[in-house]
């Protein structure tokens, strides 16, 4: 497993829609976050959903997002974060430090 990103890296979730089964929620598309952990390599769910093998596996990351940046009306301290698990092909470098 070769992970492109490491904990602490600034990333952005790729914007845009992809037809079919996708495990990246819309509310995070185009949003900036930070890699919290590398969770391992897993069969690609976008292929598994259609009876394919899901190979080669995709590296999965736990990504932290500042809540305040996600929701303009967020109630809570400005350093509160939401965490979601995002596959590598949905991430690109850049964004939050």
């Amino acid at each position, binding site marked *: 497993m070769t992970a492109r990103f490491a904990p602490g890296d600034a990333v952005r979730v790729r914007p845009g829609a992809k037809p079919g089964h996708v*495990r*990246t*929620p819309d*509310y995070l598309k185009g949003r900036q976050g930070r890699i919290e952990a590398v*969770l*391992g390599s*897993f069969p690609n*769910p976008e292929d598994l959903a259609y009876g394919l093998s899901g190979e080669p596996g995709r590296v*999965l990351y*736990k990504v932290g997002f500042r*809540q305040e940046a*996600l*929701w303009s009306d*967020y*109630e*809570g*301290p400005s*350093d*509160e*974060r*939401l*965490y*979601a*698990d*995002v*596959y590598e092909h949905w991430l690109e470098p850049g964004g939050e430090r």
Partner: protein
Amino acid sequence: MSHGNDHDHAAVTGSATSPLAARVRAMEALLIEKGVLTEAEIQDNIAYMDSRSPANGARLVARAWTDEGFKARLLSDGKAAAIEFGIEAGASPEFVVVENTPGVHNLIVCTLCSCYPRNVLGRPPDWYKSFEYRSRAVREPRAVMREFGFEPPGGTRVAVHDSTADVRYMVLPMRPPGTEGIGEEELAGLVTRDCLIGMGVPSAPTG
């Protein structure tokens, strides 16, 4: 696969009368008729799910409260720690435990569907699967918790975990004050299902 007998099978999934139940029974009948599943496999799976319950999570929590070494193992490899208790958490998905601390309170949601550590805790509560919870827990977790009658203590950060992929999360709550003299079994009795999702925290027994 041929269906070599002519009697009507009672569907394994029961006799509820809702439209959804009727659809499930129709799918079940088709899957059996086409040889994809057998009635025994469906029955076994229902029995497996019924053997899972939040009590499993409560036992893990109580042991973590009383055994620092176990707590470290639970936080670093949840599946292996569950197996120590004879809880077979299955090959997949992953089982990860997140720890509440004085600084951080964790809340679990799955905005995409209803991902939940079923192999350990059984079925999730209905509210966890509701569209309202799934859409609001990420956006206004504090308001949702208040509606459940719970408010994290001042100075505590709320961390929301959206289980979008191959990991299922359970919360390890903090041991409530006033429980120093209490044994592991009684401690487990303080840990409710909702505490394991982060929708509340355990409290010491009263009286």
